[in-house]
């Protein structure tokens, strides 16, 4: 299929990234993205917050500043209390306020199943767009949020998660990637993406493919939700994690010492996950401490980009 395009498309479907980027002038470009999904937590207000944080994340992952948003709503208005919809939207609105983004419209339809999300538009300087596919050998890889939300959400469906952990994971998913994105501006960043449905290794694979280099991950350094490993051991793993592994298996190798449950976590699909940042070696330490200072306490260097044209990922 060929897609309509013009000379001002900086990032379009031809080289799909976290969001599309369109040049308005020499020093201004639009970033556009849209995302919506079915409820992932029971609490409608928190679901709204998570959906908004998730939609905004793609703009942050491109290095941009989100400015406006529109709601996308599907709701069974005939059978369900409209108060629930109000709470979902309130959650979204509150998250937008936190992000200093304005809501300027939206559209809703009647549907059997609740769906909520947003389209988000942001701004960026055309020269400062952070694409996925620009890894440089010697770079260090930094992840800003712990992995495991997919597995914990599966365990929530199985009613095996304590209220305490539900709250912790909900807050984690609702946490904006804004602060991490702002901190990135002060450092020499080569490439960035946000970790969502393909899991850490799926998104890293997207970065590696076509980059001419390979990546090495130190599994013990990867931040994870500790309980998620226990749930994985019990088989509470979303089907998406298996699909993610199957899809990228050929380019990924594990050392024998990496436990199976940790491997599962590396493929676990994330909702509103953290940023995966490729940063110049000289800046990595300062980037991680700046992230931690700003309250992104689980940010960690998880591995390196290596000069190896095989475009593979090895995990030790």
């Amino acid at each position, binding site marked *: 299929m060929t897609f309509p395009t013009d000379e001002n498309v900086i990032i379009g479907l031809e080289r799909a990234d976290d969001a599309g980027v369109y040049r308005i002038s020499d020093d201004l470009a639009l970033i556009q993205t849209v995302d919506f999904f079915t409820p992932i937590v029971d609490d409608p207000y928190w679901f709204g917050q998570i959906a908004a944080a998730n939609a905004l994340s793609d703009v942050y992952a491109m290095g941009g500043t989100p400015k406006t948003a529109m709601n996308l709503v599907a709701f069974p208005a005939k059978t369900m209390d409209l108060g629930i919809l109000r709470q979902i939207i309130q959650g979204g609105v509150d998250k937008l306020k936190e992000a200093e983004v304005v809501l300027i419209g939206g559209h809703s339809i009647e549907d059997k199943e609740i769906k909520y999300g947003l389209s988000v538009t942001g701004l960026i300087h055309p020269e400062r767009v952070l694409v996925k596919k620009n890894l440089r050998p010697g770079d260090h890889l930094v992840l800003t949020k712990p992995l495991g939300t997919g597995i914990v959400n*599966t365990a929530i469906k199985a009613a095996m998660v304590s209220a305490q952990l539900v709250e912790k994971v909900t807050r984690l998913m609702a946490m904006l990637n804004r602060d991490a994105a702002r901190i990135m501006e002060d450092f020499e960043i080569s490439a960035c993406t946000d970790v969502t449905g393909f899991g850490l290794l799926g998104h890293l694979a997207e970065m590696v493919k076509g980059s001419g280099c390979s990546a090495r991950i130190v599994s013990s350094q990867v931040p994870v939700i500790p309980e998620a490993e*226990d749930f994985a051991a019990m*088989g509470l*793993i979303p*089907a998406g994690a*298996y*699909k993610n592994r199957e899809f990228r298996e050929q380019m990924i190798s594990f050392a024998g010492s990496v436990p199976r449950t940790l491997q599962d976590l590396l493929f676990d699909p994330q909702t509103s996950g953290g940023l995966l940042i490729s940063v110049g070696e000289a800046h990595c330490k300062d980037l991680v401490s700046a992230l931690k200072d700003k309250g992104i306490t689980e940010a960690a260097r998880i591995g390196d980009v290596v000069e190896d044209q095989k475009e593979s990922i090895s995990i030790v």
Partner: protein
Amino acid sequence: MKEIDARGLACPGPVLQTKAALQEGSLNEVRVIVDNAASQQNVQRFLESQGFVAVLEQAGTDYVVSGNGNSIPAVQPQPAMESHGDAKKIMVMCATDRLGFGDDELGLKLMVNFLRTLKEMGDELWRLVLVNNGVRLAIAGSEVLDDLKAYEAAGLKILVCGTCLDHFNLLEEKGVGVTTNMLDIVTAMQVADRVITV
């Protein structure tokens, strides 16, 4: 043997059905039929976490997991699994293979008795951590090895200090538990509601 048809269920459905079946009766053999490879692997993981030996096969569009748990005691109705619900989390740390000071022979006996009686804590028993001489409880030839294995099969997480195993040159001899490090131990202490050190 019980057969569970979990076809048509999305994750975590098949695991939940299997779990419910195990809790219903003390099953030693179970055959679970699912309709996709992800569910098959999840059921395999679950059965293995319960101490079963799981064998996978594919029959047409069906994926089958056969579990055999003959080698272990029947599954407890409510294993002290990680979900833990609202139960208190008690962490027991053994830094020795003998209970108390004085007569070593007596101390050894007492420790065996202590570990066997620990199950009375029920759901609240959350972690068993073995450090220093305590790691000797988890190695081949230990009098309580089978008891510890039964605990682990019922869902208790047993952490065995890697530095200590290495120190005693016992890394290869470990028969139960997960090798751990000080960071895991300290984190577990922080998360636990109560830490009992022996």
